[in-house]
Every structure is written in structure tokens, then in C-alpha cells.
């Protein structure tokens, strides 16, 4: 019991760095002529203080968690997936295409089909770097960065051509967005009058599934083995390139699902900038959760809350939105920078024990 408490304490220790980041932020706020107390009050209240804030936080946490799960798998498999952005986009595109294309189909069939389409598209977008790495040794950082840019252009093309909302053409405005998804694929709202949708539950369930997958199945075992020591895994008969590719494919699949769920649960249509930032924020969420699927759950909520609260703060005290990025950057830097403190504490504890 004490051991568990110690571990939990050590996991939370880095969060003590958040106030330090906020202290620096407070100085910036003062310099901008805003009242830091008012600002941070608005931030915390905005993110967790009422139903509206809390639901917004959870809405944000959902894609972060889904992307983060993919990041966990990929990192555990020893590959760095920074292609989340692109994978979200293609996942959302695919889900939209299926939903709009077969809008007459019953929701019972169409809804899972849309999610599947998102998963498959994301898997494909992660699979290209995966297979390029497995077959031709192309570094995945390079290919995932490039695939992000390609996805953006693909989306630009589809959303102003084949997939554009016919109403936009009629109206002559030609805004690059798809038609509205049929209601049958909208994810159920968990709290009326808010955006919180059942995708959040799917994400949490999947976190548990990923945990079981990574630590309780042979495939997960192989992925972790490959991630930690390729040579040893190879000698043990594990097909290293295959599992590297698989981890990128699964990473992509989760990001793709995040995209699908985002259109089905929140936006109800595909539009530009759907992904913007989630691909990277998902990495941050996963790493805040120590690359553990279950740890990613609170980490995503925390990071989602930070994003929502920061927006609220910006509105409450009217400072440039750039302050938010600055503050988030500081939080990330200080939190990861102080993780070493809890590592050292654990080390000391084990050395004494």
C-alpha cells in the first residue's frame, strides 16, 4: 500500500511545476496590465468550475486521449509518431465521406461504419510511414512530418472539390467544408446543451483496452520488446519490422478514430483546421501520462482543462491569445523538466528500502 502511495505521489510530483509556470505567467500578465488572480481564477473556474467548463474540458480531452493512446503504442514500439495531425484529418475525411455517401443507411450500421472508416484511414496514413520504415528503413519522423502536410493538402482538395457541401456551391460562397453529417451518425450527447458526447466514453474504454493489449497480450509484449531492444527481439524470433510497422499503424488508427469521433461528436461536418494542434497536444498528453494508457486518462483531462481554461482566461482579462501558447509551453517544459525529481526520489527510496 505504501509503495503504491509512493508511486502515485511520485507521479504527481511534477505537477508541482505547474504553479511555477503560472508564476512566470503571472509576471507576463502583470506586464500586460492584467490581474493575474483574476486571470487564473477565470482559468480554473472556466475549466473545472461549472458544468459548461467541465464538459468542454472533457470534449477536448477526448481527442487528446485517443491520439495519446496511439502515441503510447507507437512509443512503446520504439517509433515516434508525430503524424497525428495528418492521421486525424484523413480519419475525419473518411468518416465524413462514408456518412455523407451512405446517409440513407440506418444509424446502427452507418455509425460503426463511419468509425471504422476513420480507423482504417488513420491506419493507412500511419501505415505508409510504417511500411516505408519496415521495408525501406525510411525514418518515421521524416515521413510522418511529410504525411501531415500531404493530408492537409488532400483535405483542401476534397473539401473544395469532391466533398464540398453542395449548399456552398448553391450559395456561391464556396466555403471549404463538407455537407452536414446525417443525424444518424451524430454521437449521443451525454449532457444536454453541451458538446460532451459519447466519444468520451469510447476513449476511456479504449484506454483500458490498450492497457490490456500492451501488457496482457503476446502482441503487446512483442511491441514492447521491439521498442526496448530490437536486437534481442530479433534474436527471439520476433519480426521486428512488422511490429514497428504495426505500432505506427495502430498509432495512426487511434488518431484516425479521433478524427472520426471529432466530426461525429462535435463538428458534425468536416472542415479546415479540424486537427490543428491535437496531433501534437496528444503527444504531450501521452507523455504527461508517462506513456501509460491509463495514465493518459487524467493527463488528457488535465491538459484539456488547461487548453479550455486558458481560452477562458484570455477572454476574461483580454490578453493576446499568444499568451496561452507561451503559458502552455512553459507548463510542458517545467513539468517534463521536473520529472527527474520524482525519478530521483523513487531511486533513493528503492536504494534505502
Amino acid at each position, binding site marked *: 500500500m505504501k509503495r503504491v502511495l509512493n508511486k502515485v505521489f511520485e507521479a504527481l510530483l511534477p505537477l508541482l511545476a505547474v504553479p511555477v509556470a503560472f508564476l512566470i505567467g503571472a509576471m*507576463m500578465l502583470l*506586464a*500586460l496590465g492584467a490581474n493575474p488572480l483574476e486571470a487564473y481564477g477565470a482559468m480554473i473556474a472556466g475549466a473545472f468550475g461549472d458544468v459548461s467548463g467541465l464538459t468542454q474540458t472533457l470534449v477536448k480531452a477526448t481527442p487528446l486521449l485517443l491520439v495519446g493512446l496511439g502515441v503510447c503504442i507507437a512509443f512503446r514500439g520504439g517509433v*515516434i509518431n*508525430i503524424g497525428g495531425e495528418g492521421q486525424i484529418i484523413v480519419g475525419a475525411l473518411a468518416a465524413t465521406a462514408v456518412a455523407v455517401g451512405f446517409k440513407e443507411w440506418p444509424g446502427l450500421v452507418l455509425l460503426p461504419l463511419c468509425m471504422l472508416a476513420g480507423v482504417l484511414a488513420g491506419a493507412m496514413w500511419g501505415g505508409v510511414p510504417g511500411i*516505408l520504415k519496415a521495408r*525501406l*528503413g*525510411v*525514418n518515421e*519522423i*521524416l*515521413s510522418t*512530418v*511529410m*504525411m501531415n*502536410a*500531404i493530408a492537409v*493538402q*488532400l483535405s*483542401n*482538395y476534397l473539401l473544395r*472539390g469532391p466533398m464540398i457541401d453542395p449548399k456552398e456551391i448553391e450559395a456561391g460562397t464556396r466555403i471549404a467544408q463538407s455537407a452536414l453529417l446525417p443525424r444518424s451518425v451524430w454521437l449521443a450527447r451525454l449532457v444536454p446543451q453541451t458538446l460532451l458526447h459519447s466519444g468520451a466514453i469510447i476513449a476511456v474504454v479504449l484506454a483500458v483496452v490498450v492497457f490490456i493489449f500492451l501488457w496482457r497480450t503476446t502482441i503487446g509484449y512483442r511491441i514492447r520488446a521491439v521498442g526496448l531492444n530490437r536486437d534481442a527481439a530479433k534474436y527471439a524470433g520476433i519480426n521486428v519490422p512488422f511490429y514497428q510497422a504495426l505500432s505506427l499503424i495502430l498509432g495512426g488508427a487511434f488518431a484516425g478514430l479521433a478524427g472520426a469521433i471529432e466530426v461525429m461528436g462535435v463538428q458534425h461536418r468536416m472542415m479546415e483546421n479540424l486537427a490543428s494542434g491535437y496531433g*501534437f497536444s496528444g*503527444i*504531450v498528453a501521452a*507523455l504527461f501520462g508517462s506513456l501509460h494508457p491509463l495514465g493518459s486518462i487524467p493527463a488528457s483531462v488535465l491538459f484539456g482543462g488547461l487548453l479550455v481554461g486558458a481560452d477562458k482566461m484570455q477572454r476574461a482579462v483580454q490578453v*493576446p491569445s*499568444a*499568451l*496561452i*501558447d*507561451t*503559458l*502552455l*509551453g*512553459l*507548463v*510542458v*517544459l517545467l513539468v*517534463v*523538466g*521536473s*520529472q*527527474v525529481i520524482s*525519478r530521483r526520489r523513487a531511486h533513493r527510496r528503492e536504494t534505502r528500502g
Partner: protein
Amino acid sequence: MAELFTLPVLVGILYSGIRLATPYLFAAIGETFAQRSGVLNLGVEGIMLMGAFSGFYVGMKTGSPWLGLLAAAVVGILMGLLMSFISITMQAEQGISGIGLHLFGLGLSSLLFKTTMGGVESIEGFKAVRIPLLADIPYVGESLFNHNLLVYAAFLLVPLSTWVLNKTTLGLKIRAVGQNPQAADTLGVNVTRVRYFCVCLGGMLAGIAGASLSIALINLFQENMTNGMGFIAVALVYFGGWRPLGVMGGALLFSFVNAFQLWIQVKGINIPSDFAIMMPYVLTILALAFATKRAQGPAALSKPYERGEN
């Protein structure tokens, strides 16, 4: 298609490609140093933005692009120091520190821009310097030898950094620290110091990369003006197999194709612009996929070093 393979087009691609490649070269060669020493710095983009802003601001206030360049370099070093402290001294996971640094730089550069300038302005940056005889070479002379100083500097950096990495004691230390920091440590090489040096050098070059946009190539600052260049620069390090010459190859390939796709559009070739815009990204992946020789990365890349932990 034939109209694309005319002399003016090729000369135009050569000229634009070289200019486009300049910020990538600075940033990617800086990142090459960081990675060769074992530090993956994903925050290049944020540093570039800070360099672009500080270079522009100082250049504008003093009227001297040289002072702007100096400011960008100093700010780049400071950002590098921050990255070093977090990822080397505090041994944080490097990927995420870099993303944090990126967010920080992105935010702070716009914040400073908003509070100090408030709106987009332009300045007189570095002027093109025509190299007398060379620029007179028919066809290619103007494309190659009529650029501003930072463009030349970026390309001179390639042989210089190759030489430093391969022929100096410092370069040897960098390579050793990136592959087996423990071995280097046991020989009395100060792993921390070498990594700090490389990350700060990388930061300085990323700062200059940003400044090359704001005080030499485009001569203005706007929020998020690098628009993902920093991440492409990191990718180019992998493309180049951690060698400056290879990095230059990647930067030029990417930039030439980018210049080429604009010509496709200008010449009204009938493909959707989005596909034209994709070309440099697709070709960069393909070029690497079909390259015959593949370099091995620094073995200790992105692994924090702690003595005794081995």
C-alpha cells in the same frame, strides 16, 4: 508540360530554390549538430520564430540588419540554453521538451510582436550582394551569385560544419557523445558540456534561420511566419543522414520541387493546385525511400545520459 523545361523556368527554379532552401539549411544544420550529440530538438520551429522576431525587431529599431542578426543569434542561444537545461540537465524526454519549447517560442514571439509592434511592418534587410565575375556566368550566374549574405552563409555552412564534425577534436567529441556518451565520459569528455554546446549552436543557427526570413528574404515579421518550416528542417536532418552535405541535398530537393510546383501553377498546367503543393512532401519521402544507402543515426539520440545509470 514542355513549357516547364525552358531556360527561364529552370533559371527561376534555381534562384527561388536556393532562397527557399536558406532557412532550412541554417535550421537543419543546427539540428544536425544537436542530433549528432544525441539531443533531438523538436523545438526548432519555436526558436526560428523567436529568432525571426528578435532579428526583425532589433533590425527595425537600430536600422542595422547586422545588429538584428546578432540579436537573433543571441536569442537562439538563449532558447538553446533553455532546451539544454530541460533536456540535458533535467533529463526530460527530449521529444516533449522540444514540443514545449516550440509552443513557448510560438507564443512568446507573437506576444512580443503584439505588445511591441502591434502590426506588420517591413524593413530594409540584408541587400543582395552580386559577386562580380561569377554572377556574369551566362544563365546560372544571376541565380547563383546574386543573393544576400545570409544565403551565401547558409551554403558555406555546409563544408564548414562537415569539416568541424569530421576533422576537429570537438567534432570527434560530438560524434562520440552522440553514439556512446558513457564511453566518452570515461575518457574525460564532458558529455553535458558537449551537448549544451551543440544544442545552443543548433539554437543559434535556428535563430539565424528565422532571421534569414525576417531580415534577409522577406523583411517583415508576422505571427507564426515559419509555418512548419522548423519541423521540415528536423525531417531534413533524417533525410540527410545526419551529414551536412546530405542535409543540403534534402533542403535543395525540397525547395527546388517547391519552386517547381509554383511554376506548374503559374504555367497553368491543369492539375489541382493542392496536388501541386503536395509535390515537395511526396517527393522527399520517395527520394529517401529509394535512396540506396541509408545512414545509421546517432545511437544515443534522444536518450538522456546519467552517469552510473548506464
